[in-house]
């Protein structure tokens, strides 16, 4: 967008061989952000596809029933013999002891999408050089990111402490409640490992996104971008923030829905 904003572009008066041209008609910073995001896409794709491969290499509940000759109507219970049904694992919400499958993760998805929207609005305000509006929308975006992280902390804590009172039978003959990297009550050990790795890697991205958003908010408040003459930094961090939202869309589908 740098070429169409009214704001002066860095390097505008340089010669061709001195960085005076913009390859692909995008500024250096935005191009580099795009290519970083492309490489990050590969990281997340690697993790999610690994999840798919490992899940396919385990029995599903239906396959387990068929293999052991149990009737199809057998109610689902946790066992290390088959991969758990996600909506049976993620059915809790804070403060209430009820079975509400996927509701909490739905709220988290909603929070992250909304914070992505407020980020677009901040970028839009930046195009108009409207400092007050950029500040307002950046604050909402930071708040959304923090709310998401809080939800994830609760979800992790609940996952680690376990649900129910009895636990699941482990290969060593003991009952185990909750989850860690070695064993978990929900299913095969790799289920919890992948949960921690994938949502953890995404949560780390959200954390750094929130920190970057705070820096942008600080710089905006101090008038740095007003002096520079453009709010392109908001756009660049915005790209990162939308990417984090994008990754969650995929995590939501592949980890929770399917």
């Amino acid at each position: 967008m740098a070429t169409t904003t009214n704001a002066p572009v860095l390097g505008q008066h340089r010669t061709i061989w001195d960085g005076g041209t913009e390859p692909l008609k995008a500024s250096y910073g935005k191009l580099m952000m795009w290519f970083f995001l492309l490489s990050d896409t590969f990281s997340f794709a690697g993790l999610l596809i690994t999840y798919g491969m490992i899940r396919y290499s385990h029995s599903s509940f239906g396959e387990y029933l068929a293999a052991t000759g149990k009737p199809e109507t057998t109610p689902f219970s946790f066992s290390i013999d088959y991969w758990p049904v996600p909506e049976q694992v993620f059915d809790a919400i804070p403060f209430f002891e009820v079975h509400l499958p996927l509701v909490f993760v739905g709220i988290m998805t909603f929070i992250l999408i909304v914070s992505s929207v407020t980020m677009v609005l901040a970028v839009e305000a930046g195009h108009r050089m409207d400092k007050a509006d950029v500040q307002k929308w950046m604050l909402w975006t930071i708040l959304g990111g923090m709310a998401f992280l809080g939800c994830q902390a609760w979800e992790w804590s609940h996952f680690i402490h376990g649900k129910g009172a009895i636990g699941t039978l482990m290969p060593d003959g003991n009952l185990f409640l909750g989850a860690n990297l070695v064993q978990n009550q929900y299913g095969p050990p790799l289920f919890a490992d992948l949960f921690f790795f994938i949502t953890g890697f995404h949560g780390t991205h959200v954390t750094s996104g929130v920190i970057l958003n705070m820096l942008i908010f600080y710089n905006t408040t101090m008038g740095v971008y007003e002096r520079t003459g453009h709010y392109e930094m908001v756009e660049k961090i915005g790209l990162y923030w939308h990417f984090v939202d994008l990754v969650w869309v995929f995590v939501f589908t592949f980890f929770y829905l399917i």
Partner: protein
Amino acid sequence: MAAHAENLSPEEAKAKNVRKILTVTAILAGITGVEFLLAFTMPAGTGRNIIFLILTIAKAFYIVADFMHLRHEVKSLIMALLLPTAFIVWLVVALIKEGGAMYIGRF
């Protein structure tokens, strides 16, 4: 943005952009709502998974095209970012097949 090219006043440009952003938001919320509905009403299986996959890619399209403005970049940049994702498609096919082979080997 297109708003500058059309010589709109700042207020008009803002109204136009915000309307566009809210439209995309409504689409994303709508698709997520449909996903939720299907998660509870449709029996799990390959058919439902394919629908989820299509809806997810639709959401990704709207986020990348409109929120990240990729729609408004030059075609060579769009291609430079989209073509490498073909490797991901290959990895999906390769590792899902591998996972199936591991399952057969185990059980």
